[in-house]
């Protein structure tokens, strides 16, 4: 008798039970696959195969449906990995940026945007995990141009919470931006309209002072002629006219200030230099413009702390402050200026310059305060406000990288707060040296061309003591003189003239007398036609802005002649 190995019997029994169970399961069709013992790979049974095929077909169908939706949508859709490298991009997205379907896959989305936008996006991710509120950025088109888009994204993660990447919806807002910039211009025009009356009034007062004082001087001159003792009379005439002359000059300077403020409205949005500028200067400029509205309704309180420069566009910032000031003013009832107050303040908070404009008006209802920045929302009567002012303000401030916020207390008043980033580089504040004319300077021959006789005479008067002046009203005459061989050390020429413009003269001199062409300096009024703007940008010609003060003009001419002498001869300056 051989010994029975109980453990192997157990194993055998178990194998038999297993086989039995397997056969039963097979019969009741509960088996999906049989493992091939040689390759140990599972072979799917036919019922499982059919089922899998069906479900795959269903999957493909639903995938196809999703794909169609993703491709048909008018927004760009991009899926990226956690490092923002593109995994998938729909056709709309690649079309938007001029790429072929698969050109963007694998490259980083950050390659398509500027540094500033990268930082903004990363910051939003740091704060919120993803760009949850749509953010306006610029993406680079394959051609190199910029495409304005609005981007929002969702964080993708699996069930275990692992970060798989981002799903971005990208909307082309170029058209929208165009419309917005049109709105900005039209708002600017509307502002000009409402301010025109006030400004006319503002200019009228100092102008009256100029005229009255000059009249008075002329009158005194009349008496001088009638006087008996010429020398005595002349002395008293001189002392009589000194004060009125100074007053007239003061008043005229005031007009110049107002006109300079108004010029910001005529600048087109393309030429928007962002410069480090002083918010206090801009605030004062806005106050001057709003003064006519303001002074009848409130006392103005200024609380300026010294603040560093901000890097924004001056014209836009004037527009913002002007809007806020007018708004604050309109919150106050007319006629009780001593009881109401509009305050403006500046201070530094962290890396921002903060400007607050507050009023002691009735405040804003809490129920509407969240809507006051919405476009076309207005509480003013029909025809008084467009409802665009604050919407545009916020837009402008956001474009400057700043924030515009509001705080209001019913019955107490409202505070608008503008926070702007401090300019990163501060330019040197050393003014250009102004060396006055000295006696040992040689007399130069200067041609002055301007169709405005008053300007011509003024320039002649200012310069004729030190130089020989030839003045003419027409560019044609100036050209004729140069063609004749007259030689001028300097040609001061108005840019915009009826007949032949300063630009024409410049271009025609090229063939007539190239050396004279080099001696042209333009006198400009500051407001240009697009043609003139392009011309000035393209030609290496200096220009002097009108109006100018006598001392400045003299200093400029002196500097110019000195530079010319320096470049014409190798001899060192004395």
């Amino acid at each position, binding site marked *: 008798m051989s010994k029975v190995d109980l453990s192997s019997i157990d194993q055998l029994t178990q194998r038999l039970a*297993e086989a039995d*169970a397997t056969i039963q399961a097979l019969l009741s069709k*509960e088996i*999906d*696959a049989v493992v091939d013992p040689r390759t140990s*790979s599972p072979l*799917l049974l036919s019922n499982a195969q059919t089922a899998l095929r069906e479900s795959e077909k269903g999957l493909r169908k639903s995938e196809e449906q999703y794909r169609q939706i993703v491709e048909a949508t008018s927004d760009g859709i991009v899926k990226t990995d956690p490092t923002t490298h593109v995994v998938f991009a729909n056709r709309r997205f690649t079309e938007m940026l001029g790429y072929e379907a698969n050109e963007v896959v694998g490259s980083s989305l950050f390659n398509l945007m500027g540094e500033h936008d990268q930082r903004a996006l990363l910051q939003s991710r740091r704060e919120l995990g993803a760009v949850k509120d749509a953010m306006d950025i610029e993406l680079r088109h394959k051609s190199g141009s910029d495409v304005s888009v609005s981007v929002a994204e969702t964080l993708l993660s699996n069930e275990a919470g692992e970060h798989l990447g981002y799903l971005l919806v990208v909307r082309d807002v170029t058209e929208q931006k165009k419309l917005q910039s049109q709105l900005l211009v039209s708002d600017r025009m509307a502002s000009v309209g409402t301010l025109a009356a006030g400004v006319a009034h503002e200019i009228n007062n100092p102008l009256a002072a100029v005229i009255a004082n000059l009249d008075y001087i002329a009158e005194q001159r009349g008496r001088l002629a009638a006087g008996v003792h010429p020398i005595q009379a002349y002395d008293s005439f001189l002392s009589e006219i000194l004060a009125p002359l100074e007053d007239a000059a003061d008043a005229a300077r005031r007009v110049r200030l107002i006109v300079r403020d108004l010029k910001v409205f005529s600048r087109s949005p393309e030429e928007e230099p962002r410069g480090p500028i002083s918010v206090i200067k801009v605030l004062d400029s806005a106050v001057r413009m709003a003064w006519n509205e303001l002074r009848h309704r409130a006392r103005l309180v200024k609380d300026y702390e010294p603040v560093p420069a901000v890097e924004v566009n001056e014209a836009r910032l004037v527009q913002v402050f002007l809007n806020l000031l007018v708004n604050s003013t309109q919150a106050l009832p007319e006629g009780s200026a001593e009881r109401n107050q509009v305050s403006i303040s500046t201070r530094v908070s962290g890396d921002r310059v903060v400007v607050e404009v507050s009023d002691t008006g009735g405040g804003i209802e809490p129920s509407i305060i969240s809507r006051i920045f919405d476009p076309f929302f207005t509480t003013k009567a029909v025809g008084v406000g467009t409802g665009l002012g604050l919407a545009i303000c916020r837009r402008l401030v956001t474009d400057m990288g700043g924030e515009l916020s509001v705080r209001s207390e019913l019955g107490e008043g409202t505070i608008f707060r503008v926070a702007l980033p401090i300019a990163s580089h501060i330019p040197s504040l050393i003014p250009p040296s102004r060396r006055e004319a000295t006696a040992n300077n040689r007399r130069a021959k200067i041609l002055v061309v301007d169709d405005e006789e008053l300007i011509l005479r003024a320039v002649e008067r200012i310069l004729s003591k030190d130089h020989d002046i030839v003045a003419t009203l027409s560019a044609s005459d100036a050209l004729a003189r140069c063609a004749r061989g007259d030689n001028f050390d300097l040609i001061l020429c108005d840019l915009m003239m009826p007949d032949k413009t300063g630009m024409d003269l410049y271009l025609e001199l090229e063939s007539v007398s190239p050396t004279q062409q080099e001696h042209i300096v333009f006198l400009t009024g500051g407001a240009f036609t697009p043609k003139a703007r392009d011309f000035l940008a393209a030609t290496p010609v200096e220009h002097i802005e009108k109006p100018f003060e006598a001392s400045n003009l003299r200093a400029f001419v002196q500097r110019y002649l000195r530079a010319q002498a320096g470049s014409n001869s190798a001899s060192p300056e004395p």
Partner: protein
Amino acid sequence: MPPIAIKKASLVLRLYVAGSAPNSVRAIRNAQAICDAHFASRYELEIVDLLEHPQRAFIDGIIVTPTLIRLLPLPVQKVVGSLSDAEQLLLALAGS
């Protein structure tokens, strides 16, 4: 990966399936339902897809899918099929 608590689990199971084939899907659902109902948090259930990891069938000597293996407590037990008979399954899991 969630922390593995095999030592605490009184019941350790491994279920071999073939992708999302109907019986396999059913088996997963049934196994989870029964375990949740009777063993609450005291069990570990590992699901092995043989379409993805065919070589693993060799280790446990798997012939067909779905097959459920009880690794602990010993002895090792196998249940074949879609696990739709709850009573039998429970017997297999709880019995020795």
